[in-house]
């Protein structure tokens, strides 16, 4: 029996209030009847019955004319295994993680082939270094214990000039520079978790193992404005650039064996099951859980709320695994991602409403600061479309999030200065560019990125570029319940209640606007006709 597909619910007078995430809180909101609709994600797909077997099978029967993995392994070779970092999946999944399952299989085969020189690299790109706990969780204790103490488990360092190799320039003049170890290996195995359609493909190596010098060619306002959306690789300049780079890497002789896995949308553990149920189907237990959770969270301190929510481990399950040649693998992966996340949506809407959850790719075990609020709503959820954006051009996005003026000084040091200095001057992504170089090359940020657990100095700029398409497309962005000073600094408008926000939006889109609520997470990708 295949699970229920996604669903677009037209809101009627009898429709119960809809669940909104509100950062580290939850609430129910009523949407105007007769002109609102709610997009519900499809129910979780059936997982693979035996993921380990499926992984083995994929490695033995690769796609795209690639030879089975065992035939690519020989004793005297240099083997490098790269894997996606802590930004995936969200929330972090219950053990065993996909990466552990895959890498254990790869290592088994390598061991059988007698490969001695194996290095595992976390493909951080410009993200923060993972902690020991995060690495142990992603890779499993066995791999960690076997590789970390001897220094064979590394985290990519995009600022270590000696550890980078310049590959060349694409026909568009884009410089390609990636991890030297990866570039000089006889085989580079890249292990993905493809949570959203943006992930994977050539982007894995070309971005995940690249340096600032290379990444800046596609992480910029021009590329982002030409990516409509970056969740749809066929209309994404971000992906075109990565594909050019990936092909150059391949032509330069780097042999990449790509392994991509997909997950179902089983996002929350049993205690929070109500979060992925449709409201009218809530049972007594779900209702009580909602009340307990929302009230409980509302009385807890920030720190306690964060500690509790970030300790949630998602019961994601693997729905597919494919291995082999990058492009063939990615095509199959995309089909599987879409099978889980795609929902057909008829026509655009005037107003898109989103309740932002507590977590995004860049604040695992951390604070969702105002810049991340912007990127989660305008970068991620706005872009979760294929075809046309859910909200029409000149429309309004209404976000629910407390947006406190708060930053994790250890994880996001350059964000703080970006917020205080750059956004105080301009919120136009194109104007922002002029400050980029100084942040990217700053020795203090560089040290915090390399030695600490900080995002690269340039990262807040990328976050802001991520919003470029939405900022260009929208008439206004309204944040409900946010810290007014912080919201204004972002260039958005602040409203106290959803009702007020809808009133304010009418000034932009006219009377009686249509409203679409994206009921996320679990993730949903709107296929807008």
């Amino acid at each position: 029996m295949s699970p229920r597909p996604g669903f677009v619910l037209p809101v009627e007078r009898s429709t119960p209030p809809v669940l909104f995430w509100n950062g580290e809180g939850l609430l129910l909101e009523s949407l105007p009847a007769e002109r609102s609709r709610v997009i519900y994600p499809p129910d979780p797909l059936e997982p693979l019955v035996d993921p380990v077997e499926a992984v083995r099978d994929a490695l033995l029967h690769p796609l795209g004319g690639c030879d089975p993995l065992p035939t690519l392994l020989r004793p005297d070779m240099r083997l490098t295994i790269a894997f996606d970092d802590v930004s995936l999946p969200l929330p972090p999944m219950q053990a065993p993680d996909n990466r552990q399952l895959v890498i254990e299989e790869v290592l088994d085969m390598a061991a059988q082939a007698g490969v001695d020189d194996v290095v595992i690299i976390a493909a951080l790109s410009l993200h923060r270094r993972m902690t020991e706990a995060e690495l142990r969780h992603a890779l499993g204790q066995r791999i960690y214990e076997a590789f970390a103490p001897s220094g064979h488990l590394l985290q990519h360092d995009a600022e270590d000039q000696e550890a980078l190799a310049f590959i060349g320039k694409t026909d568009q003049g884009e410089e390609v520079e990636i991890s030297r170890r990866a570039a000089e290996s006889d085989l580079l195995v890249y292990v993905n978790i493809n949570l959203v359609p943006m992930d994977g493909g050539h982007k894995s190596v070309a971005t995940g193992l690249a340096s600032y010098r290379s990444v800046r060619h596609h992480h910029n306002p021009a590329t982002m404005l030409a990516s409509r959306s970056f969740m749809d690789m066929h209309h994404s300049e971000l992906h075109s650039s990565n594909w050019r780079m990936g092909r150059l890497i391949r032509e330069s002789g780097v042999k990449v064996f790509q392994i991509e896995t997909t997950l179902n949308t089983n996002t929350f553990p049993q205690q929070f099951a109500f979060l992925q149920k449709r409201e009218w189907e809530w049972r007594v237990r779900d209702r009580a859980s909602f009340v307990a959770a929302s009230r409980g969270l509302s009385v807890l301190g920030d720190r306690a709320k964060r500690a509790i929510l970030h300790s949630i481990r998602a019961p994601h399950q693997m729905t597919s695994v494919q291995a082999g040649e990058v492009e063939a693998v990615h095509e199959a992966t995309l089909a599987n991602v879409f099978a889980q996340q795609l929902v057909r949506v008829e026509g655009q809407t005037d107003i898109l409403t989103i309740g932002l959850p507590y977590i995004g790719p860049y604040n695992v075990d951390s604070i969702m600061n105002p810049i991340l609020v912007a990127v989660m709503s305008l970068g991620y959820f706005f872009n979760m479309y294929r075809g046309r954006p859910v909200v029409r051009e000149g429309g309004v996005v209404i976000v629910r999030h407390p947006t406190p003026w708060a930053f994790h000084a250890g994880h996001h040091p350059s964000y703080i200065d970006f917020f205080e200095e750059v956004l105080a001057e301009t919120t136009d992504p194109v104007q922002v560019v002029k400050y980029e170089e100084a942040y990217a090359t700053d020795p203090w940020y560089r040290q915090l990125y390399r030695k600490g657990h900080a995002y690269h100095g340039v990262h807040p700029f990328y976050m802001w570029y991520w919003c470029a398409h939405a900022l260009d497309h929208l008439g206004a962005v309204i944040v409900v319940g946010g810290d007014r000073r912080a919201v204004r600094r972002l260039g958005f408008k602040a409203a106290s209640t959803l009702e007020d926000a809808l009133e304010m939006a009418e000034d932009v889109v006219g009377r009686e606007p249509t409203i679409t609520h994206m009921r996320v997470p679990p993730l949903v990708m709107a296929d807008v006709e």
Partner: protein
Amino acid sequence: MSKRIAESLSGKRIFITGGTGFLGTALVERFLRTVPDVELVLLVRSGQRTSAAVRAEREIFRNDCYDRLRSELGGAFDALVADRVQVVAGDVSRDGLGLEPEALEILGSCDIAIHSAAAVAFDSPLDGAIEVNLLGPGRVAGAITKALEAGARPQSGIELPHLIAVSTAYVAGTHQGRAEEILWADAIRETKAARTHTTVTTEVDIDAEIAAARRVRSDLEAQSRSPVRLQGFSKEARRELGSAGMHVIAERAERFRQDWVKRSLVDAGRARAQSLGWPDGYAFTKALGERVLAADHTDLPISIVRPSIIESALEEPYPGWIRGFRMAEPIIISYARGLLREFPGIAEGVIDVVPVDMVVSALLAVAAHGTRDADGSDRSAGGSTYSGPVPGHPVVIHVATGSRNPLRYSRLFEMVRDWFSEHPLYDEQGQPIQVPQWSFPGHGEVQGQLRRYVTWLGAADRLLGSVPVRGVGDLRSRILDRRGLAMRALSYAELYGSYTETEAVFDVSRLMSLYESLDPEDRRQLRFDPLVIDWASYVSEVHLPSVVTHARAKTTPERSRASRRRDRATRAVLSPERKLVVFDWEGTLIASNVIDAYVWLAGQSLDAPERMRFIARLAMQAPRLWLLDKRDRGDFLRAFYRSYDGARVAEMQRGSWELFHQHLLERSYPAGIARVRKHREMGQRTLLVTGALDFVVEPLRVLFDDVISAGLQLEDVAGNGATVQRYNGRLTGIPPIGEARALLVAEYARERGIELSEAVAYADSVSDLPLLEAVGYPVVVNGDQRLAAVASKRGWHTETWKMGAPGAPWLATAPLAGGRRLRPEAVRRAIDLLAAGGLAGSDGSTGALGSLRRPAAKRGTSGRAGSGIRSERVRRLYTAAVQRGLKAVATLEAGGTLRVGRSRTPSGLGRGGGPSQPGGQGRAGDTPGGPERGR
């Protein structure tokens, strides 16, 4: 100017003392402006670093008193001054006025001497007032006699110089009723019933008074140096400044001692004065000064001019001119600021105020009128009864308004109140201040109330000062402000109360006869008849506007002053002129301290139970450490760093990076870090000075140009065939805190040729006071209460910096082996609790369900978690928690003194003593925070 006055003074040479004072300035100006060819000789005291001439230029001729003359003369002003004014150095508190022979010669050539120098403060120390007020007039007279004897000019046939001594009407003291223009000696001689109509009549042995006053000074100086007193001063200084360092404390204690001596002398003066019938040392010494002058200098013709309370000018040089914050002004301004809720005084009593230009006019008339010849014939013609002095018969003239044109206290109060109701001052928030209504309670009541208030505030301050909490600094500095104001109000009430309660009425018959003697034209010019004053217009149109301007009080509601000041200060600090910027670390750039770092580093390789015990043991030491820190930061650090005895160097250094990035950074103040970077970006040299250990601040090196920190001594310890480097817990040098810090920074600056006056220092604690005092631009960041008080007193720039997000934990510990945190179990249970809502039974009939059915907008207002929580599950959890707690306590008790000595302590720390044992779970290269970024 009247022909007659100008004529009679024409060609005269006039010696003036007290030219730098309020009255003297106006007097000199009037002579220069209105008497064309009079020559002035000014006796001016040399300053410590400035000559008498420079002082005269600065303190007399640059005063706005001369604005009128300057504008009339234009460029010729300086020439006029040079031409007609001669400055001689001297001091009325020294015998012979401290004159050089040439100066004495000049004095001998003078026709008139006007002595207006006085210690006018009612709270002058007794001995100083004795020297100036009591002995001063006699010294002037003596110097004149000496100059004449020296034969500076032939005595015979030429008139003797006329000495005009300015005294005060209040020599009448506590006299009630009419006080005549008569000397004490004459009053005693002329009538047996002097007490009925004149001044204080008490016989005083003046020489004994002088000797006693000088003795009091030396007694008090000796007393102030007694061990008990000295300890008291040190204690007081320590309470104010805490562990600011020996020198700072010593300086402050010495200031307290000097203040104490001064205060005691003032008290001694007042007590002596009151015991004899005068309100304070000022009136007392002035009165005795008159007696000395009259008794000892019968060889000179002397006029004694007794003004009452001199206030701003009625007309000349321009209405409202005033100099210095004088008697009534501080009271008026304090009242307008709403600080004086009450003031002593007799409502129907007379406040005898006289405008300064009237006193000047009277002096001019007295000088012009001149003396009588020895035969008694008055040199000036006219039908007036006024006659000048002859040697041995001084003339006394009151310049007062109370008898002829009285200003009642209640009327004055109403005029002041009405004026400020119409022209209010504004508080910092830009709100008009409402002035209080006084009820004129009985004698001494106001002082009593104020004294109680001051005592109460003092107690509140001490209480707050003993609470070891940051953040009350603001409250404490507000209390200190209040206390300062109350003390000021009290001192005003004590000082001036007797003047508002005075019941003497000063007779002005002689003044009026002098006035009558003037040519009508002169009368029109000089106008010193008290009747010319219209009190209502004088108070509200002349005096109050002048006082308000003078006090630079806030007369507009605009709020921006404070923020403008802030901006200015920030600009000054960030100016490119600054060459060196010094930052403190703990408390200034980060909300953390040495204990925080120690807990992390020492605990990093302990397992969970060991760690709990370790923290418990540390917690038990907390009070001792706190006391130690409070007493002396250096001792505290030295003692605390001993805990690092035996710590493995490699492990500490590695742990410090994790400590910094996983914990300290989160407790840093981003605005502070941004400020460091900003200074550096501007090309200024940035220096971190911290008492923290070098390896702890190692990650900060990239942020600063230089780092000065504490360091520990290393030892090679052999064990298991390999030598390991360990710390022995002893410092390599003096920890860079307190005064040592200031010295190190000074040395650092000197080596680089940087002036400390161009340096900025950011710090948070009173122990940084020596450093902050050493630099030109001190900035107090989140100052502790003592430093906050100092900063607000000195007007230092302050900054408040916050963490990136609230709630980052203090005393965090490193991740446990395997990267786990200490908390997961508790958190997991909390999740269960939250999410399951305690619905173990799930019977569907809970109250929680009911609330869901209500409209959405109404929900979420209650903070309670719903009735579902009260379930079996909670009970189970609670019981489990209690049991766990009991078990932990039992474990601790089993450990006896909470030692962790038997446990594995791979870092060599966290043990109760004895050598540590190697071992543990960590392997080489297994850094707690995950592998390094690698190649």
